[in-house]
């Protein structure tokens, strides 16, 4: 059974407006539980994680102000002073940051007075430059401002500055390398996850050679760039902040899988499929998708996917995988190399299949596994546990070096 078939789950989601009374009472109870978790010493971070993941997330921006910093184990006692003005002139990325922030009107609430918005845009520039200046190892990318603006709007400048700095050195660290190699590597998780759940969609996308660039802006902006409703964005941020740094790529996979029928109906060519997928429908059943992404994460954890992400259908030997990394690091075109190799292998497989049909010796692809629905508690506990020790970047969690362990 593929993901799509259990669509009815979404009907009970609060965002769909059904079962309102029931949701009101659950919401009240949840607010009580969050207050309880915040009131104990030390704060019950595990409980807060569960709240951030489970239905409705953290409910209000007031709660987010209190809980988001806790999810990142932040100390909010000593907030930084306003950054010095000379930062602006001296920073190498200042020009690009300025250009991008000044033209990001879409990310501010419609109807906000111009002067208020302009003030916030200046704060946005300050936060970004402050973080970059204090962490010279971090590099600005177009799309980073889409993430930072969300934190600014919810937390205000001072708290956002501290949180964004922590996030940038952890969850977002891989995106902020001098090159985009690690970002591309994280995108490589997408197709193996899709393959596990729905091999047909996976094969169709491979045949179309659509690649994964359609999901690039989703990943590096945590969907902030592509979702127009701010409520959806903060709900997703609840989820991502409470989870493993690779969770956004699982969520990306879930969106593709949710659109299974549309994908299979699409013309099987790169442009058509890219175009279809890059346009995210604005009425996605977020609660359902969040819980599915959690399910996928637990069943196909990064440690299991790392190999496939790295190998991405190259032959199952460490040597050829290593070759792929060599190509990648030499800034050649690993994608086309992989594509060619995949085609060659498919041809070889077809031949082998014909020859050894009787013995059924054809190279087996990892079988699609039935997606098991986990109880919400079980899921949130598992995810919370995985995320509790959030101190590393996505790739440190599931390093490329894992390859050496799996010859």
């Amino acid at each position, binding site marked *: 059974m593929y993901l799509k078939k259990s669509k009815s789950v979404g009907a009970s989601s609060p965002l769909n407006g059904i079962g309102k009374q029931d949701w009101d009472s659950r919401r009240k109870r949840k607010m009580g539980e969050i207050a309880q978790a915040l009131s104990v010493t030390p704060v019950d971070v595990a409980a807060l994680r569960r709240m951030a993941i489970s239905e409705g997330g953290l409910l209000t921006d007031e709660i987010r102000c209190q809980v988001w910093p806790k999810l990142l184990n932040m100390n909010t006692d000593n907030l930084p002073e306003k950054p010095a003005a000379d930062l602006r002139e001296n920073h190498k990325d200042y020009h*690009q940051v300025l*250009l991008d922030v000044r033209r990001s009107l879409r990310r501010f609430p419609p109807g906000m007075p111009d002067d208020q918005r302009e003030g916030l845009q200046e704060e946005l520039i300050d936060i970004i430059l402050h973080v970059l200046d204090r962490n010279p190892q971090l*590099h600005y*990318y177009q799309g980073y401002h889409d993430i930072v603006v969300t934190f600014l709007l919810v937390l205000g400048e001072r708290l956002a500055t501290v949180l964004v700095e922590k996030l940038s050195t952890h969850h977002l660290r891989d995106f902020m390398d001098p090159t*985009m190699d690690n970002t*591309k590597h994280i995108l490589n998780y997408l197709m193996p996850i899709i393959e596990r759940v729905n091999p047909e969609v996976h094969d169709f996308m491979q045949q*179309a050679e659509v690649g994964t660039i359609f999901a*690039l802006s989703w990943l590096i902006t945590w969907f902030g760039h592509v979702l127009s409703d701010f409520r959806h964005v903060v709900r997703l941020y609840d989820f991502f902040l409470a989870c493993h740094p690779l969770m956004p790529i699982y969520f990306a996979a879930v969106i593709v899988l949710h659109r299974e029928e549309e994908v299979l109906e699409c013309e*099987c060519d790169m*442009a058509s499929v890219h175009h279809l997928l890059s346009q995210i429908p604005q009425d996605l059943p977020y609660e359902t998708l969040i819980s599915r992404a959690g399910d996928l994460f637990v069943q196909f954890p990064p440690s299991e996917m790392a190999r496939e992400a790295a190998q991405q259908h190259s032959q199952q030997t460490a040597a050829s995988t290593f070759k792929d990394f060599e190509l990648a690091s030499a800034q050649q075109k690993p994608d086309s190399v992989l594509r060619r190799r995949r085609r060659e292998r498919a041809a070889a497989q077809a031949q082998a299949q014909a020859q050894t049909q009787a013995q059924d010796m054809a190279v087996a692809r990892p079988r699609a596994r039935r997606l098991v629905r986990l109880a919400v508690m079980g899921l949130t506990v598992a995810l919370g546990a995985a995320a509790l020790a959030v101190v590393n970047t996505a790739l440190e969690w599931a390093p490329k070096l894992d390859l050496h362990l799996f010859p």
Partner: protein
Amino acid sequence: MEAIWIYQFRLIVIGDSTVGKSCLLRRFTEGKFTDISDPTVGVDFFARLVEIEPGKRIKLQLWDTAGQERFRSITRSYYRNSVGGLLVFDLTNRRSFEHLKDWLEEAKMHVQPFQIVFLLVGHKCDLIQLRQVSREEAEKVALAFGMKYIETSAKDTVNVEESFTVLTRDIYERVKRGEISIQEDWEGVKSGFVPNVVHSSEEAVKPGRRCPC
């Protein structure tokens, strides 16, 4: 059913950040213009049909690219499968003009073994007061690069249609003369007639799956 086209050309739009690539494309494909537009994160896709001669339509696949340098490792993989490109600079931004050479070198390096037909586009020509590059100067550079030059404004809808048509016609002529030919394993130019027929017959047999591969 999609309108019938004789060829499909894949074009790429490149140039520095904020020169107006996305605005130009949005004006051309949707007829819309906003004074302020979000930066492109990664690669965006647009499509439109143009009529090159009465009754002869060409389908354009248009790839819009992020201008920031760090995205080049991603955008450069789009050069190889493009038959044409708009090389855009901002007439009010001298730097974007000075970077044209880098963009062209980048493109040439990654298009091998194919070739791209470029059109040089001086954008934002409505901002007369702020102009930092003269037409003569730009024309001289275009001549040196071996490409045509056009000045456009997405805001005032000046030469938007023309820029794409000029480039499309240029490519079309080369295809007719046999200088550019359709090749397997290359997406730059595709012929519209034959595959369409194959598609529709396959559709009848296998609804929902149109993949000819």
